């Protein structure tokens, strides 16, 4: 294992010190392990809390700030946060209008957020949740724990965050987050595995000419192994899977997201293929993100997320946002 760390057990703690030092707009509570806006809760505004395992940076801490999250709860690398830290963050950001939990659909994340929500409710904080499950690689059937949450989390956090900033109440903010999730689908491809610092070994092995299709963001294997092909062909596999699940039409928001080990030049090669495929299907990209937003440590590969926009969602996407990883309009 070759990593820029001080010790495998201190990666999270050390990185949080770095986050606090780098971003004066954020406050890091190191005992309760959450990252929040430095200004404290905004009175009367719905608070947004997300969280999940670390190793996906900038998700979620990089999306804390005006127009997006109020707090993020980082777990150990690839491990859900514990209820204590989620509860502490929920209490800290409640400005009296209730708190929305944005949770990626993994058993651990769902159980830990659920416990925290029950404890917060005991304290009199109103909590609602949106569970993001956009990954079409997993069949949503009685045979699985349901679909995983991946790239659409960024869209849900941005759009629900904008709505909350504009004064939407808890129910409206949650419904918008849910709508974004329902209108979004993702598919991921991995070219290399990644290594969790505490384990020291890659999560799986891939030959020189192999790719994992439908890979998750925790270094878990995907739904099938395929041959390495051109970017255009792999994009075809991903978009065919998305289109088969949710027929695409009209205006869309697209994210081509790097998993941590893929250079931007390749992400743009992928984006070109995505744009070409969509144009060929008479689907128009009106908003996009290309870059590393939901990573999987140093894994090479990408995820492609498509959201079918409405004028309202476009408007909220365009609303000002000021966070370490997304900023525009102000």
């Amino acid at each position, binding site marked *: 294992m070759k990593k820029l760390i001080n010790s495998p057990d201190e990666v999270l703690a050390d990185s949080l010190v770095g986050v606090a030092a780098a971003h004066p707009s954020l406050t890091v509570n190191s005992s309760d392990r959450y990252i929040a806006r430095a200004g404290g809760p905004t009175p009367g505004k719905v608070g947004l809390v997300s969280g999940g395992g670390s190793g996906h940076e900038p998700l979620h801490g990089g999306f804390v700030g005006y127009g997006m999250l109020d707090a993020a709860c980082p777990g150990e690398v690839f*491990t859900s946060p514990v209820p204590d830290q989620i509860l502490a963050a929920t209490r800290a950001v409640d400005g009296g209008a209730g708190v929305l939990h944005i949770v990626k659909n993994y058993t651990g994340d769902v159980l830990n957020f659920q416990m925290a929500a029950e404890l917060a409710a005991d304290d009199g904080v109103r909590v609602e949740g949106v569970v993001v499950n956009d990954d079409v690689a997993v069949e949503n059937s009685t045979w699985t724990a349901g679909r995983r949450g991946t790239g659409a989390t960024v869209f849900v956090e941005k759009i629900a965050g904008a709505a909350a900033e504009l004064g939407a109440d808890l129910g409206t903010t949650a419904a918008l987050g849910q709508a974004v999730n329902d209108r979004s689908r993702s598919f991921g491809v991995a070219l290399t595995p990644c290594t969790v610092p505490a384990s020291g070994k890659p999560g799986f092995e891939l030959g020189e000419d192999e790719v994992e299709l439908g890979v998750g963001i925790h270094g878990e294997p995907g739904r099938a192994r395929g041959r390495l092909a051109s970017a255009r062909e792999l994009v075809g596999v991903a978009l065919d899977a998305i289109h088969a699940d949710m027929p695409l039409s009209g205006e869309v928001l697209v994210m081509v997201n790097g998993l941590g080990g893929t250079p931007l030049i390749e992400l743009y090669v992928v984006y070109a293929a995505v744009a070409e495929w969509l144009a060929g299907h008479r689907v128009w990209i009106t908003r996009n993100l290309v870059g590393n937003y939901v990573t999987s440590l140093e894994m090479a590969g990408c995820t492609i997320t498509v959201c079918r926009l409405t004028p309202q969602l476009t408007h909220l996407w365009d609303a000002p946002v000021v966070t370490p990883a997304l900023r525009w309009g102000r």
Partner: protein
Amino acid sequence: MTTSPVPTMNGDSVDTDRARTWVQAIAAAVDQHKDHLTQLDSAIGDADHGTNMHRGFSAATTAVAAMEPDTVGAALITAGTTLISTVGGASGPLYGGAFRAIGKALDTPTAGTQQLAAALAAGLASIQKLGAAAPGDKTMIDAYAPALAAFQQQAGAGADLAAAATAAADAAEVGMRSTTPMQARKGRASYLGARSIGHQDPGATSTALVFRALAETLGAR
């Protein structure tokens, strides 16, 4: 269920010390098998089960060592709460909730075989209520359910604690091995679909350690 408030004459009961010893014995077993658990989790999950369990049970051992419990359950409730606060992942709430449920059912200074059987049943009920997994889904349930059945069967037949716990540990290990040919339907491993077949479930493996530690604790006089 009624229990004698005084320890039984032959000493065949769980007392506050043995409850604490059980937690320590699990921690020692997890420490020894940490890499194996993580290796199993890297095949069908995200390579953290050993690390998760190790973090949780190390903290639980420290927490129970610092207390002067007056019931059998007190140390187990503290262990459960500590697991919830330190593990994360799916296994944190599931194990944490189970130990809290077991502890709450042992609200006496000592407990006999029947009472422990009922407490272990409460633990399983907690895991199933939270995780909604059924036997055959390739989870910790597949080790826990047969272990509980064996314990209950022994308890019903009048066996002593050590015999019941040994039967439970044996059954847990059989259950653990039975997860290998199963296709996962719950948790992260379910994302692999048919590719989860052929791998032993990490959570079932740690559950077998939990029951073996109980057998060792109750077998030691």
